[in-house]
């Protein structure tokens, strides 16, 4: 009995002491990837019985490093290269060498790296794809000659880094930027938005940033040794290890468990899908089998925006992506390349599409007819109708006799067909299998056409590449084609001018045609009618976007131009056209219907009220069986009983 009590006391005391143990303080810098890594450590420790105090998102590199040294933090994810920089040691590119270099000075400071996570997160200079193609940028060194025209965007912690930061970067590569924008660390992701909106031209991102891929941006290679290797690993102190000797063992399962694609995906889930770092980390750990729990991700709700593959990374496509992401937080919005974006929309593979205005029309024998199955939700930019010809070919589009276009049904074929019909002179079209610049260029090169049409966003990659790689081709005037009746037949076009030097080989201003690039969604049926609801009702049609969504996208796009009057716009954007101001009934058929209903009501009323004597009672008595009259008598007895 006494032994039992003693044993119980012992167990209780042990349990209590375990509970009362000081918590492990897990901290991190305030970037998304650091938060995710820190949450992974914290959750792993908790799963192994540690009590954990979270100081996740504590500050920038220096803040957290100092906190660790001061003993107020026990462990946080750090990058070997950053630690090197914090200690002011010359850069080193080889990861193992970096680690070897750190051992000694860290031991002196009482710090220790645990086994690395297996992911490297480098700084990477990023630019827009169009800019990279136009200026033929590949490495950072190639920025030097044009840096005077460019603006750089960096985070504050990069700007303040002593060795591998802004000052050393611009000095080593001899970069004299027109302007340098520094944003606080917590708004670091906003740099991507600024880059897309052309408020900056180059930025320093992390190689693990999902935006680089999502927005089709061009990372520049660092072609001279500057940034050290940045292996991510838990950094702890000897003091912390003496308090929590089991810490390295507890974190051992994380060693080598996170690779770069995994981390990028986790960061994307936080940034794009709007999940918390802890939720994302918990799911990842459950998948890896490090922590028990549900590996089931809460339903991911992808939303695809179909876009021509050549347009990936272009300004309009990225503006659409950004606006839809802002408007629909919590959804994994992504651009989906599709040769024919509107077919993808109709087939339900995409919820929206980014297309030039011409795609809203279809060709009929009577000319271009507006497609009523789709509606424009917002304007994200303009598409140019590029006219390309040989150097010794026609000087204007109007002089060409054979014009190469995209395949039948493509917007460029539609425009060319309508122009042919209304233009003077005989002109034949040579539709190609593909509407990209490469296919049109090769048609001209092999003599299948004298000129060609490409609809593309300004300075789109394939157009720029074609002009650069085929010096025999040049851009020619096209606007003169759009005259007289064609203006009425193709109301969505407008005139635009391409400045000299804006495209390879362009030495004079060229006047071209352009049109709006719009986000497009499926349109609801035109008239009010029977809805999709019912006890059993099923609808396979693609549903239009809700007004709420359309308005949110409109807000996210900001003060941009309205959808052109020639396009069908979402009803949430345009007030309904006022009906004729008259007090007279616009629908005489409804008056007739109403009269009919009242006439029927009159008949019903007469049938109800006419005197019983007029009823041919005989028939109904025929049908009532004798058995049925008995209960009637019984019923009356019953009610009499109730009365009394």
């Amino acid at each position, binding site marked *: 009995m006494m032994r039992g009590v003693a044993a119980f006391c012992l167990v209780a005391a042990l349990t209590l002491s375990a509970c009362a143990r000081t918590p492990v303080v897990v901290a991190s810098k305030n970037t998304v990837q650091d938060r995710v890594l820190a949450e992974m450590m914290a959750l792993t420790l908790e799963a192994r019985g540690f009590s954990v105090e979270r100081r996740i998102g504590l500050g920038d590199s220096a803040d957290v490093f100092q906190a660790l040294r001061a003993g107020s933090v026990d462990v946080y994810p750090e990058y070997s290269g950053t630690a090197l920089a914090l200690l002011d040691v010359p850069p080193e590119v080889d990861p193992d060498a970096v680690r070897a270099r750190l051992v000694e000075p860290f031991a002196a400071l009482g710090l220790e790296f645990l086994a690395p996570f297996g992911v490297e997160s480098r700084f990477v200079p990023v630019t827009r794809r169009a800019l990279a193609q136009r200026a033929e940028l590949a490495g950072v060194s190639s920025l030097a000659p044009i840096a005077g025209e460019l603006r750089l965007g960096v985070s504050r912690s990069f700007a303040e880094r002593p060795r591998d930061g802004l000052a050393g970067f611009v000095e080593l590569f001899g970069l004299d930027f027109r302007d340098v924008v520094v944003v606080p660390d917590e708004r670091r992701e906003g740099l991507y938005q600024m880059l897309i909106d052309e408020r900056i031209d180059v930025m320093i991102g992390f190689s693990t940033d999902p935006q680089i891929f999502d927005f089709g941006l061009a990372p520049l290679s660092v072609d001279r040794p500057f940034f050290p290797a940045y292996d991510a690993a838990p950094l702890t102190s000897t003091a912390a290890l003496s308090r929590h000797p089991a810490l390295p063992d507890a974190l051992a399962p994380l060693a080598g468990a996170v690779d770069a694609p995994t981390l990028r995906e986790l960061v994307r889930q936080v940034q794009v899908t709007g999940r918390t770092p802890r939720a994302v980390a918990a799911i990842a750990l459950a998948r890896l089998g490090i922590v028990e729990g549900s590996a089931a991700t809460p339903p991911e709700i992808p939303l695809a925006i179909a876009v021509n593959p050549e347009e990936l990374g272009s300004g309009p496509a990225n503006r659409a992506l950004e606006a839809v992401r802002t408007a629909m937080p919590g959804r994994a919005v992504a651009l989906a390349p599709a040769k024919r974006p509107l077919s993808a929309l109709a087939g339900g593979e995409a919820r929206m599409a980014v297309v030039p205005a011409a795609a809203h029309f279809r060709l009929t024998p009577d000319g271009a007819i507006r497609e009523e199955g789709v509606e424009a939700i917002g304007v994200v930019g303009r598409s140019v109708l590029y006219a390309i010809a040989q150097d010794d070919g026609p000087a204007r589009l109007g002089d060409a006799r054979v014009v190469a276009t995209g395949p039948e049904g493509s917007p460029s074929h539609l425009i060319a067909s309508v122009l042919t019909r209304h233009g003077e002179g005989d002109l034949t079209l040579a539709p190609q299998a593909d509407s990209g610049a490469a296919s049109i260029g090769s048609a001209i090169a092999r003599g299948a056409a004298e000129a060609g049409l490409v609809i593309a966003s300004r300075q789109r990659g394939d157009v720029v590449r074609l002009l650069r790689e085929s010096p025999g081709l040049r851009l020619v005037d096209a606007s003169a084609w759009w005259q007289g009746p064609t203006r009425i037949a193709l109301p969505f076009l407008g005139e635009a001018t391409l400045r000299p030097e804006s495209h390879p080989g362009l030495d004079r201003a060229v006047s071209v045609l352009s049109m709006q690039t719009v986000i497009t969604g499926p349109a609801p049926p035109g008239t009010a009618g029977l809805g999709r609801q019912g006890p059993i009702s099923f609808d396979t*049609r693609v*549903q239009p976007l809700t007004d709420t969504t359309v308005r949110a996208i409109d807000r996210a796009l900001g003060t941009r131009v309205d959808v052109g009057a020639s396009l069908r716009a979402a009803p949430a954007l345009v007030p309904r056209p006022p009906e004729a101001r008259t007090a007279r009934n616009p629908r005489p058929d409804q008056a007739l219907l109403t009269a009919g209903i009242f006439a029927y009501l009159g008949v019903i009323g007469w049938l109800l009220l006419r005197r019983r004597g007029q009823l041919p009672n005989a028939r109904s008595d025929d049908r009532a069986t004798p058995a049925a009259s008995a209960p009637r008598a019984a019923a009356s007895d019953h009610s009499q009983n109730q009365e009394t």
Partner: protein
Amino acid sequence: MKSNAVFLIALAICVPVGLWGLFAPDTMAGSVLGFTTWFMVGASWWWLALCSAFVIFAAVLALGPWGSIRLGADDDRPDFSTASWIAMLFAGGMGAGLLFWGVAEPVTHFDAPPGQEGGTPEAARVAMVITNLHWGLHAWSIYGICALIIAYFTFRRGGKPLISTPLVGLIGGRAERGVLVGADVLGVVAVVFGLAGSLAMGALQVRSGLASVIDVPETIGVALAILAVLYAAYMISTLTGVEKGMKLLSNINMVLALAMMLFIMLVGPTAFIFESAVDTLGAYVSQIVTLSFRLFPYEGLTQWSASWTLTYLIWWLAWGPFVGVFIARISKGRTIREFCAGVILVPTLFSILWFAVFGGAGIYVELFGPGGLSALVADNVSEALFAFFGYFPLAGLLSVAALALIFIFLVTSADSGTFVLSMMTTDGRLEPPATAKIVWGGLVAVITAATLLSTSVEVARAMATLGAIPFSAVLMLQVVGFLRALASEPTGRAKADQVT
């Protein structure tokens, strides 16, 4: 003699309309839906007023002096236990819609309530009330009145359970016979197409459910295979008779549905669900008068009314003849008061709870949870249910259970439909012969297959709602016949008047 006429004329109408749908799906769907839409939008005030009048009429019947009249001889007692009876009401009348729209409808209204800002707490309250307006008293009053009239004439007056029975003797003269045959033919045609259209959409729903649970290809072949299984199941069920097949399936369904509801109730935000149930009950009761007559003439929201409230009313009317006759068949021996409570009040209370559980949990996900559900509902209603389960543990099991439920609901609907058709065409025999069931079960399956082959959901919808508007005219005649019959029914008040 007359049943032969009904059978032949009905067949003569069904076959060409079915062929029209198969070979010219666009024009068929366009004309039928166009007709329904024109009637619905042009006289929206009339439909709302008519259906609300049914609610009032049902209340008067239940609470007034006629409440104690028994649907049968005074010493008759119900054939079915109250639980089985209510299970069969749901199985016959609501079908899989409760499952699909249980989450989707409240969330849709929450996202975009008519005439106000969506996503707010106030929108949540409005959403729950509107949903219950669509699935509550109005729906069940339409069914209830249809059923009550048939049941009264069948079991109290010893007539035949036909659409035309209440009309006997109403018109008189030479026109009467034509009207009676016309009413019965209309009933048969409405049930055939209502059933075929619904089964076609149901097969598509099951296919889409299978696709999201076990990744089945969404081809026409799969839909036809589902129909074949469905056909076998409902033929077996209907041939074993209402007492066995239908009752068993309905009870299984009820248990499954209740288990699913309990699961979400307990695993989901329990307190929130019950708070919203109580809140909705209060809001529904206090706003029922306003809502029963609310159109949007000043806001220019006619389109909203048409595509939600009126669409539901049209659906309930379209299913009226078939559900009405079926409910009548299983309600022998109950008093009018009991009938109204059981067919109208209890199901309404149940749907308030049901929508509080599924819709409430859905709105909770949007307001306080991870969110994203309303976006999904806006994208694809039929996947919303399965996505909704994804927010809870055992999502796979829930999805399979939901699919089973949907399937059984389809079987029970088709079972009762076949049964009703056989009754209607065998001059109202309460236990129709197996041959009639085989003929009608087969014909419905063939028309359903044709609808699936037309690959136009619009055709299915057009068929399913085809009978609604003509039937509403017949229903009014039935009400007149019923009122006249009631007037001759000795009641307490009539006696009291005589005494004074």
